[in-house]
């Protein structure tokens, strides 16, 4: 964080236009410490400048966002990643989350929502777009999956009813504050539910998740 409490943000995207757009939306509200349009350059600069949050384009030539994520996480585990993508392909989303990103938003997100997401990620919380919430509900659904009773680790492979509720509300377009009001719990509690879902998403070995991940050569 800067002395004024603004998160230090780094932009990684190979499209000049997108970077310009994001920069103009964020200037003044966060401290943009650098940007890169190539995987190698990005890795080097992020490790050198250790920003609070990296806005990471998932699809980039030269290995894509996943390469940056993995290389940086190894050296600087404190740098947090918010994945930014135009793609709705579920395997992409699940892959970056499983590689360690704290959140995923689509590029047509509005300026204030993006800012909100950055602050959340900087604070160590998770950010789920409605689509990501939908994917998670789908992947963790109880029916129709190859689940064998012995294979299920209830701590990692199942969502609690409350987490399910929270995800449904996110998918319905509710903000964290709206969810708190709806369920009569504090925003902080909502955040902790979402963080717990994120953890399950990253660690669970559910068939579909590991399938998606292995298709992208995560293992």
């Amino acid at each position, binding site marked *: 964080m800067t002395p004024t409490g603004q998160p230090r943000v780094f932009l990684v995207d190979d499209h000049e236009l997108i970077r310009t757009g994001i920069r103009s939306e964020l200037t003044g509200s966060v401290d943009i410490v650098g940007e890169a349009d190539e995987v190698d350059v990005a890795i080097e600069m992020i490790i050198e400048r250790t920003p609070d949050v990296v806005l990471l384009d998932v699809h980039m030539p030269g290995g894509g966002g996943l390469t940056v994520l993995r290389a940086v996480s190894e050296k600087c585990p404190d740098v947090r990643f918010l994945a930014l993508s*135009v*793609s*709705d*392909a579920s395997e992409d989303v699940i892959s970056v989350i499983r590689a360690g990103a704290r959140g995923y938003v689509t590029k*047509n997100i509005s300026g204030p929502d993006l800012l909100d997401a950055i602050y959340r990620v900087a604070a160590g919380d998770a950010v789920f777009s*409605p*689509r990501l*919430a*939908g994917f998670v*509900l*789908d992947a963790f*659904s109880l*029916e129709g999956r190859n689940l064998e009773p012995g294979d299920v680790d209830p701590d990692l492979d199942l969502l609690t009813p409350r987490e399910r509720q929270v995800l*449904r509300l996110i*998918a*319905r*377009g*509710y903000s964290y504050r*709206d969810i708190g009001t709806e369920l009569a719990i504090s925003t902080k509690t909502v955040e902790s539910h979402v963080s717990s879902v994120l953890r399950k998403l990253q660690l669970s070995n559910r068939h579909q998740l590991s399938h998606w991940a292995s298709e992208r050569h995560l293992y």
Partner: protein
Amino acid sequence: MAIETPPRAVIGTPYRPLRRGVKNAILGGVCGGLAIRLGVNERTVRIIFSLLALVSGVGLLLYMLLWLTLPRASEAQSIAHRLLGRRRELHRVLFGLILVVAFIIVLDRLGIPSLGIYTWPFLLSLAGVIGVWRGATPDEHRHLEELVRSAPLIRIPTSPSKKNLLFRVLLGTVLVLFGLRTLSRLHGYWGGTTPVLFGTIILILGVLILLAPWWLATLNELSGERRARVRVEERANVAAHLHDSVLQTLTLIERAAGDEGAVVRLARNQERELRQWLFDPEHVVTDDEAGTYSSQLHTLEGEIENDYGVKVELVIVGDCAANPDVLALVAAGREAAINAARWSGATLVSIFAEVETNAVSLFVRDRGQGFDVDAIPHDRQGIALSIRQRMARHGGTTSLKSTIGVGTEVQLSLPRTP
């Protein structure tokens, strides 16, 4: 070729099915696979097979038999299984077998001795080779082609110089002649069958050296040509799609440059369509089918975005067939979404659809101005009523929540019998 020593089987290790090896394969991986299954050194297995092949040809036959009937470690079906499933390939292999038999008979008639006790194993193995070549998976084909290519003298010359060609022709001819001569010596110094086998091998080697480069080159050209054709077709498809959709839209945007609303609408429409084409090809909606719940919703998303200029965020979990009840649910959802787009003042309408074991639900939400549910103006009551009635007719429920300044959500649910 790097050969990895297979892990030795010890008592208590889990049962390993007998499969042909992939990593430790020289020819078909039979010896490697056997070694892993039996837990012995693969070199031992190879030596045993070679000895068996020399002594009576049985080793050769056994090897071919296993090659044909054992599936590769990475594959589900054996070559024989695949061949039997394909009538045409089977015919080809049988045809090859008949040719080989005919060749031997002709040799016999011409007074050139047959191969003695080697005859039948050798013959059947040749047919087996044809079978392997026809029935192998592309992956195994690649392995075999690599093998043939890496053999000295047979591989395609990188620089087809005259000297190279001359050497090849000379060597090939000499080998062919020498092979024929050995074969023709009915009662040679060594007597019996050894010179016959020896001669045959040399003859085959000679022919291979003479003809292999041309054969391989033709093979290469053919597959290269096929690949190029596929690429061209693919490119044509992409070009056609880009032309029909993206290029058209860009032209329309240029023309509508003055009208902001129209530009946004066109761009969104194109974005949605392209996104679907790229990432979700199964869900491409065709006009003439009721299809599924999700395909109906995708259509709805498009209509709302097009006709009302708002962004729709659609999230779907699960899917089911679009029966009349589900169609009614979607129709009710459409009215709710149109309401939100028209009256709420929000630029984004969130639609969440979920299919569970015993319910199909649809949520339409906006973060617009909201209204007082108890004091609905007359013109909006009509629509709210029609949604309610429609849902009730199909056994579903409707619930409406709205807060001034926060937004509105319409919740629709339909019971479902799985």
